[in-house]
């Protein structure tokens, strides 16, 4: 197909075929909260190709530098691109070899600038990012959306998590949760998402970041219950003729 040079007008700075118009392989919700020693973050390992649950071992949370943890939902290839940007950023930060290092607040600000700039060029990175970390005892948890909206909070969630997990967190989150309570709360949110979000898969990881560093758990599954009486004879109320 021919690209007429002036027909693009003001909508983009590159040929249309190189802009992100819609996402292809996507990750679903990420949920995170602050607890006593740092941040806990949970995400499942699914990569959907439209409505097909195609990839089932996708790591959607990665550690950034010494102090931060990044979780992403949305287009997975854009997430990988963001990881490359951050890799370079952390590399240059380390190359200074002085007593300073980029903390979670700085990484969050940087990501906000990147996301907003791409949005302005009509070529967004199609992700909702969750950035959590601890530096010098200070806990930090923030979110950036694909249009550059950013904020900090005690608990955040992306995608469906916003609708299903955050109400639970608003009710049950409190300051200085213990590690066990934090994990229980996250699992409660992830279980609801597993039941109700079509693109969720039952294989998740929970990551924690404290002053000591990042630990990402091994993948595991949540116990679910399907033994409701209504499921035992599904066609019971459906007989009839018309």
């Amino acid at each position, binding site marked *: 197909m021919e690209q007429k040079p002036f027909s693009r007008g003001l909508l983009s700075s590159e040929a249309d075929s190189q802009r992100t118009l819609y996402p292809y392989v996507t990750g679903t919700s990420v949920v995170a909260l602050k607890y006593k020693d740092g941040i806990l973050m949970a995400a499942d390992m699914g990569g959907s190709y439209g409505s097909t649950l195609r990839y089932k071992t996708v790591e959607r949370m990665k550690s950034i530098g010494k102090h931060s943890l990044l979780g992403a939902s949305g287009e997975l290839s854009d997430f990988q691109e963001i990881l490359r940007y951050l890799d370079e950023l952390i590399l240059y930060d380390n190359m*200074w070899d*002085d007593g*300073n290092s980029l903390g979670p607040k700085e990484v969050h*600000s940087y990501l906000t600038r990147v996301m907003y700039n791409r949005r302005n060029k009509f070529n967004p990175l199609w992700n909702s990012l969750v950035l959590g970390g601890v530096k010098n005892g200070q806990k930090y948890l923030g979110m950036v959306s694909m249009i550059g909206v950013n904020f900090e909070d005690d608990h955040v969630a992306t995608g469906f998590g916003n609708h299903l997990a955050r109400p639970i967190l608003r009710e049950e989150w409190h300051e200085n949760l213990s590690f066990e309570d934090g994990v229980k709360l996250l699992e409660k949110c992830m279980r609801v998402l597993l039941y109700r979000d079509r693109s969720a898969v039952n294989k998740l990881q929970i990551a924690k970041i404290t002053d000591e560093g990042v630990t990402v758990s091994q993948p595991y599954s949540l116990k679910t219950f399907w033994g409701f009486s209504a499921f035992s004879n599904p066609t019971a109320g459906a007989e009839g003729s018309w």
Partner: protein
Amino acid sequence: MFRNQYDTDVTTWSPAGRLFQVEYAMEAVKQGSAAIGLRSKTHVILACVNKASSELSSHQKKIFKVDDHIGVAIAGLTADGRVLSRYMRNECINYNFTYESPLPVGRLVVQLADKAQVCTQRSWKRPYGVGLLVAGLDESGAHLYYNCPSGNYFEYQAFAIGSRSQAAKTYLERRFENFMGSSREDLIKDALISVRETLQGEKLKSSICTVAVVGVGEAFHILDQETVQQLIDSFELVREDEPPAPEAGDAVADQSEASAPVAEEGAAPMDI
């Protein structure tokens, strides 16, 4: 230094491995009026002597605020100093916009040094003729750096640059070991005494001296004239009496040391 056949160009080496133009630029720093810096664990003080070209004119601005946590005092070609301050302010603002966090002073100093180095390696440029004392705070505490026209930078506990700075340096060398633990007030007092050392017989007053402070929980700011005059009064008074006045409890040791230069000052009453 004498004129020789290798000093015309900054890009010409001498057989002894020297770049004379760069060294001449460092001479320009020595001709400027004095600037002094000293730091403790939590504070950095900059002080400078204000020189006005005539009684009718105002004095040149030698201390610049670069950001809330960084300030700089210059000696030498003040125009070059102004331009470099603008560069530093720009770098701080850009970093703050992207990272919402203050630019670590150690990194700013390296950027400044790299900028100065470029001018020592281009035939169409000349080195900056200004020395900068950069005072700032970052994660690892309070820092004082000296940036040289040669593109070198050094970190100091205390330093003085400009004309008659050797007298200040001598005083600072005697006292610097105490600086890390000094209080803010003691540091300012030491800074004012150092400035006094560089004055030849002129009486130390706030109209000829500018003092700036940056510290943990204290943004960089230049002290106003009245405050400086009050501080000068509070320590000069004590200096003239033999018994130590009840100014600050730990200032007793200070007095005996300060009284030594008193005798020398009184002996050379040349008015400039």
